[in-house]
Structures are given as C-alpha cells and as structure tokens.
C-alpha cells in the first residue's frame, strides 16, 4: 500500500512537470492557429518553420552563441581552475569568492550590470556583446565542475612530470588535462545548456535587431506565439531526447565491455 502511494505521488509530480510539454508538442501538430481549439493533425507549422526568417536567424544566433560561449568559457574556465587549484590559500579563497559572485547574483542584476558596462563604454549591443555576456556567466560553472577533478588528482604527478623533464606545456596537456577531462566535458555541456536556455541576461545585452530564441519568444509573447515556435521547440526537444538515448546506449555498452 505504502509503495503504491509513493509511486502515485511520484507520478503526480511527473505529470505536473510534463503536462505543459505535452500541450506544446500537441499544439505544434494542430492545423489551426488557435491555442485552444484542435483543428486536425498537420505538419503545416513544421513546413512553415523553415521559411520563417526571424525564427531561423534566432536559431542561428542561439546555437552559434551557445557553441562559441561554451568553447571560450571551457578554455578560460579550465585554465582558471588549474591556476586557482595551484594557488596559495589566500588568493585561492579570493578567486573563489569572485567566481561565486556571478553565480549568486540574480540574473537580472548580472544582465543590467553588463548592459551598463556596454552603454558606459559605448559598445553597441548586439551579437558580440551577447556572446561576451554568455561567456561571463558560463565560466564559473566550468570552473566549479573542473575543480573537484583537480582535487581528486594526485598532487605530485605534475611536479613529477616536470622533474622528469617535461615542459610545463607538455605536462599540462599530457598529465593534467587527461585526468580532469570528465570535469571539462561536464563543464562544457553545462555551459552549452545554460547558454542555450538563457533569457534574462541575453535580453539586457542584445539589441532588438539580434535576437536569440528566448528573446524572440518574449517579443512575440504579447501578440501570441506563432505555432512555428512550438514546432521548433518540439523538434529541438526531440533532438535532445534522441541524443540522450544514444549517449545512454553507448555508456551502457561500454559498461558491459568493462
């Protein structure tokens, strides 16, 4: 009985989480434009999707910024984590406090502070400022996913490599990097995901001319979202789901091998 209640409770919570998503996906197949009325099944919005220049550009901006921001913040964050890890106690805690600032600040304050910076330095807001902002909020997450791996590493292997004649660059790439790779990958994935889904910070650091999907949705929200947007997000959702299944398959296969 207790078991049934627990399962039932979990199913209710999951239902709560999935209802809006099911609604969105169903709406994307609705032939009509209305949100509430079902007018038959069609792929109309999926066809129109590729002829909608605003959405296609927003998609391009979103994905290219997510990729660029993930790459830059991963490099920046990994180097920073290696440096912070090797620091003395005092500068280390200072750096950690500084790293925690952007994570604890509310998104809206981060966005506004960056907007003020760009206005103050007379930098026109657009694609590049959005990219800079995304790198800024991504990097701390990379650092925080790389640092634990560095702590698990043997302290002396880097110095041993140097003693055995490796240059610092060689030791970095052949001793440290392979050990912390899982953390680096987690950090990169996290940065990519955060950047893909960000609204608030992008909203303040871009101009109306350059929109990512979130800010485009926001600007459409008043007039009513076009069903093509639902179609796009349903597609992206399916793509990610597929990716998850593939990755899961692979990892379970390698587990079996080991």
């Amino acid at each position, binding site marked *: 009985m207790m078991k049934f209640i627990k399962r039932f409770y979990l199913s209710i919570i999951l239902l709560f989480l999935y209802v809006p998503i099911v609604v969105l996906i169903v709406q994307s197949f609705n032939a009509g434009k209305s949100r509430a009325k079902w007018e038959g099944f069609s792929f109309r919005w999926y066809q129109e999707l590729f002829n909608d220049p605003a959405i296609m550009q927003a998609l391009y901006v979103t994905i290219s910024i997510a990729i660029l921001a993930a790459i830059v913040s991963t490099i920046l964050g990994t180097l920073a984590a290696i440096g912070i890890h090797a620091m003395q106690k005092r500068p280390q805690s200072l750096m950690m406090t500084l790293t925690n600032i952007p994570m604890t600040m509310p998104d*809206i304050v981060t966005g*506004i502070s960056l907007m003020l*910076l760009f206005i103050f330095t007379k930098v026109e807001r*657009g*694609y590049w400022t959005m990219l800079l902002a995304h790198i800024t909020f991504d990097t701390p997450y990379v650092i925080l996913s790389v640092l634990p791996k560095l702590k698990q590493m043997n302290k002396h292997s880097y110095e041993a490599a140097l003693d055995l004649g490796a240059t610092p660059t060689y030791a970095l790439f052949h001793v440290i990097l392979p050990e912390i790779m899982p953390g680096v990958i987690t950090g990169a994935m996290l940065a990519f995901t955060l950047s893909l889904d960000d609204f608030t910070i992008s909203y303040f650091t871009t101009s109306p001319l350059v929109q990512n999907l979130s800010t485009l*949705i926001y600007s459409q929200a008043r007039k009513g979202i076009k069903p093509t947007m639902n179609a796009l997000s349903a597609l992206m959702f399916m793509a990610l789901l597929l990716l998850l299944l593939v990755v899961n398959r692979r990892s379970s296969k390698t587990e079996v091998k080991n």
Partner: protein
Amino acid sequence: MSNLQVPAWGTWVMLVGFVAFIVLLVIYFKRNHGLKRPIFSSPYTLWIIVFTIVPCLLIAYYAFTDVNGAFTLDNFKNFWDSNYDMNKELIAMGFNPADMGFARGTVNVDTLGYSLWMAFLCTVICLVLGYPTAHIMAERDFKLGPTLVVLFVIPMWMNFLLRTIAWMSLLEDNGLINGLLEWLGIGKVQLMYNSGAVLLGMVYNYLPFMVFPIYNVLNKMDYKLSEAAMDLGCDKWKTFYKVTLPLSLPGVVSGITMVFMPAVTTFFIPRMLGGGNTEMFGDLIERTFLTANNWNVGSALSMIMMVLILLSLGLLRKVDPEGEGGSMI
C-alpha cells in the same frame, strides 16, 4: 547573417586586447620553464575584473549619483518613498505635500514585500513537494532514482518561456482546464492573472532545483545510520526526525537557495501569468531601466536586491558552513 551588425570599436578593443593578452601569456609561458601554474588563471582574473567587478561598480556608481553625475542618496529615498521626487518638487515650490494629501508612497516597498512573500511561498511549496519526492527517489529499494533525475531534467530542455506560455493555454478562460471543468459541470473558473497562477508557474519552474540537491545528499547518506537508529529502538518517524532530516539539511539549504534567489527576481513568469496585476521586484527593476529609462533609480533597486540576496546567503551559510549541499553539479 545579414542583420548582425558589425561590432563597434569598443568590442574590437576588448576582443583584440583579450586575444593579445593570451598570446603574450603563451609566449611568456613557453620561454619561462619555471613558471608557476597560478598564472593560468590570469586570463580569467582579467575577464572577471572587466565583466563582473567593473559592472558591479557601475551599478554602485549609478545608484549613488543623479542624472548629472553628482553624489546623491535620492535614488534610495525614491525606493522608500515612491512619491519622493514629486514631493520634493512640491516642497521646492513652497507647498506642504502632507497638506495636499500626497503622503509617502510605498509602492516600491510593497512590491519588494510582495516579491519576498511570493518567493517565500514558492520555496515552501517546493520544499513540501520536493522533499518527499527526493526521499522516495533516494530510498534503498527504489531502483529508479537515476532515471527519475533524468526525467526531471528533460522538461528543462524545453525553453522556459515556452513552458510558461504553455501553462497559459492550460489556465486560460478557454483553456484546457476550464474546458475540463465545464465538461464536469463545475463551470469556468478564473485561473489566470492572479497570484495563484504566478505561484504555480514559479513552483513549476523551480521544483527540480529543490529536488536535486536534497536527492544528492540523501543518496550519499549512509543508510546504516538510520538502520542503527531503528535497531536502537527509534520508530520510523523518530528515525526520520532525529537522523535523516538533520543529515539532509545541507541539501535542503542549497535547495532553498536555488529556489528562493531566482524566485525573488523572476520577471517573465509574473508578467505572463499575472498579466500585470502582480508586479514583482524583477519587473520593477526591468521597467525602471527599460521603460522609465531611469538608470539611477534602477541601479539603486538592483543594489537593494543584491544586498538582500547577500544577506540571505550569509544567513544560509551559517546553517551550512561547508557548502556541503553542493550544487547540481
């Protein structure tokens, strides 16, 4: 893409400067074998100075100056008394605002109070719903824990604005829930554009952030401890109250942090589901900056927000000094 404007000179200076810095660093690094690793973090240090510290200082600068750049505390007085500017002008013209019925306006303070209250309610509901969820997921004979974590993450892949808008089509007057209610013979109910709808949207968005940290802590907990408590004569509830709950506190604390912080400053959810009837502090900041174009007052509001967040973080640190609850990572 045709619409992407060419970055202005300032951006180029920043980008080129940054790249040059890294190139110099690499050259220096290659020449100097005895170089210490802390140098690796210098690009990031530079980055954080330019993109975190300077912007924060700018907020402080705008908050403490007026339009002409002179030092003033008026922006904070404006927060405390929404009619401050008007009253000041009246006094300058020789009137007494109190006589004319213009008392101190507290719109901003009320908005802040309302936001804190809503965020508090949201946190409590998330905790009440999330703790049992995490507890069930972390039980030893429940094998689906990791799968459920994935199931909780998947909805977050759908754009958060779209998910909130999807709730609109559920709650609308002609929406699905009202359709169902009508079919059941209960009749239509006004579900949208009130605090309840905003609260629902907030709980929906932030619930996973409560479940994950608690689940992580409970999952790592040594189950032998609760077994020992049972062996020593505690009943189920007492074991939970005396052993499990105190041990899971770090997770609860980081869950509370991760729900409360974004909940106070959310501005999309109240705008959509509250339809302008329920302004929250995030809305107020956004409106002050972008609609009223008043950066000074807006900066003062942002500073107040930041101070509040830092204070509550400090309080929470006292409960969980090691930061053990960790984050989602």
